[in-house]
């Protein structure tokens, strides 16, 4: 499906710009004779749309680490937090003097990404020496440590959270960044680096015996994943305009991991689809639980969406551990497509 990543990138950026402009400018009837834009009229749907874009960035980035390189990281939300706080700190500091934010916001986003990537380097260097379960726990530990540091950092609002950012994030920035993320991940995977990632995943010892510097590839995947998590964090912060350390906890990391698993580890198209699905699903269930036309039993089931969600994960692992869209379980065919 994604054979020509460059075309996909161009198409994605173009589409993002076009849709973004039309969402803000195409007049829609507001039912009372006047006209208003989509964003004003359907703020809730706009919110979900942006949420989808951010999920896609997070999941595609984590897929590089968990899927292609086979290193199970459980701390993605920590890097998201680094990006969110770093970029918010910058826009809050210089927001007034730099004016409209046309240049400031992308610069802040990028800085947030770099900060997260740096955090990824700091975390990844030591922890990627560990394997499997241990790596999962250590990344989780780092997630908690990042959260704890923010909770104690007075300039970042500590326990009170950080607010007051301008709402720079719009459809263009979100989906533009999503397109870039998918492009970079695909381009990396199809390059020499990609072969290295897959070799590390399939058999680390054999890869090392063939002269591949496994640490280098693992750290690289980790840093790139962290960078995009930072970007996603920046987008999130400048959309919601309020961030709190508890919003980037272990459960948030698990959410992203579930997207990657559901989509099939190491399958970018599947993972992006799963990110969309898992962002929309809770909203659909919320709507179902409130719909008056449906019987009470259906409403009640939908109300417990988190129970459903976790059951889904268990059943999926028992019946289809390769994910909904993954190839064979060991990734022999499901690797690069």
């Amino acid at each position, binding site marked *: 499906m994604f054979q020509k990543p460059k075309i996909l990138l161009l198409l994605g950026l173009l589409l993002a710009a076009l849709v973004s402009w039309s969402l803000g400018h195409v007049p829609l009837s507001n039912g009372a004779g006047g006209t208003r834009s989509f964003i004003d009229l359907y703020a809730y749907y706009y919110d979900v749309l942006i949420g989808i874009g951010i999920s896609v960035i997070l999941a595609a980035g984590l897929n590089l680490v968990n899927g292609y390189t086979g290193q*199970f990281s459980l701390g993605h939300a920590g890097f998201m937090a680094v990006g969110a706080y770093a970029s918010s700190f910058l826009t809050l500091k210089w927001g007034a003097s730099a004016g409209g934010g046309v240049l400031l916001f992308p610069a802040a986003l990028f800085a947030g990404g770099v900060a997260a990537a740096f955090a990824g380097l700091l975390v990844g260097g*030591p*922890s990627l*020496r*560990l394997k*499997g*379960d*241990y790596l*999962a*726990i*250590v990344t*989780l*530990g*780092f997630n*908690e*440590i990042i*959260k*704890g*540091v923010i*909770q*104690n950092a007075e300039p970042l609002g500590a*326990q009170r959270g950080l607010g007051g950012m301008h709402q720079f994030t719009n459809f263009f920035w979100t989906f533009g960044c999503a397109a870039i993320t998918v492009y970079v991940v695909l381009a990396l995977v199809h390059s020499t680096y990609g072969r290295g990632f897959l070799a590390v995943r399939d058999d680390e*010892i054999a890869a090392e015996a063939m002269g591949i510097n496994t640490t280098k590839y693992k750290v690289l995947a980790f840093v790139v994943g962290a960078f995009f998590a930072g970007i996603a964090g920046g987008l999130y912060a400048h959309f919601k305009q309020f961030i709190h350390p508890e919003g980037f906890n*272990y459960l948030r990391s*698990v959410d992203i*991991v579930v997207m990657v*698993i559901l989509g099939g580890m190491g399958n970018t198209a599947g993972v992006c689809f799963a990110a969309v699905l898992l962002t929309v699903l809770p909203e659909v269930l919320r709507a179902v639980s409130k719909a008056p036309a449906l019987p009470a039993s259906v409403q009640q089931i939908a109300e*417990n969406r*988190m*129970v459903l*969600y*976790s*059951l889904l*994960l*268990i059943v999926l*692992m*028992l019946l289809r*551990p390769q994910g909904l869209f993954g190839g064979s*379980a*060991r990734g022999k065919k499901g690797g690069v497509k």
Partner: protein
Amino acid sequence: LIEFLQQLINGLAQGAIYALIALGYTMVFGVLRFINFAHGDVFMLGAFAGFYAGPRVLAFFGGGASYPGAGVVLLVAMLVCAVIGILIEFLCYRPLRNRPKLTVLITAIGVSLFLENAGQFVFGADPKSFPELITDRALEIPESWGAVSLLTITANQLIVVGVTVGLLFGLRFIVLHTRMGMAMRAVSFNPTAASLMGINNDLVISFTFGLGSALAGAAGVLISIQQPSIDPLMGVNAGLKAFVAAVLGGIGNLPGAALGGILIGLIEVLVMGYVSPTYRDPIVFGVLILVLLIKPTGLLGASAREKV
């Protein structure tokens, strides 16, 4: 110095709880080589088993708080958790026995999320107040003991530490002096060879899950005696801390888990007392990371070489 000693006592009571949970992690890791993420939530279920059984058992023993009643509640919670632990293993982990470890790990995370969310649905998300099983009071230390009499030791702390030590010796007896314990050690040493020697590995694994979960259930009741506010998410943090304890002591090593639990309890209390409560979790995880980087096998663990 008195304040420091006081902190040590508080830390010991807290660490005893972590030790009990950590033992479950370590035993399961010993026989199955994987981290049972849902273990912390079994601990939570133990607290809720005590919460529902408590008033009924106490009524049977004639109303108010009483020691025999508390003992029965403890046993009920242990039994309930043992059954739940065996069920979880049977339904979720056994079908995955020969799959990649990552699959089992993700399933364990799924089970953990399920227990937390189902717990919020069944028990309600708001914190519940645990019934008073025993009347707490500060122990009177005779004046003639000098400075020691300035310390406050509550009956609860004494009971928590006492019960923990009792359970630890019980566990030691089971593992070292019974046939099932011998089988557990054999499976942990080499599962294939154990099954060739006629050991029913599935039975041993079920038993291990039951035993570990029973200890977690006991820990659930013990912590609720100390801090009588329980909620369906209480297992997340306690489970993580206990896991850190298990790794600190050397995962797969029973005395190590007990030692690690007590050390983590002490570290937590000391950080809260002398640094800042908000630094408690980062420092505990920092300890974990340091241990894994310097001596990945933990304080008491034996080093193993990876075979190709």
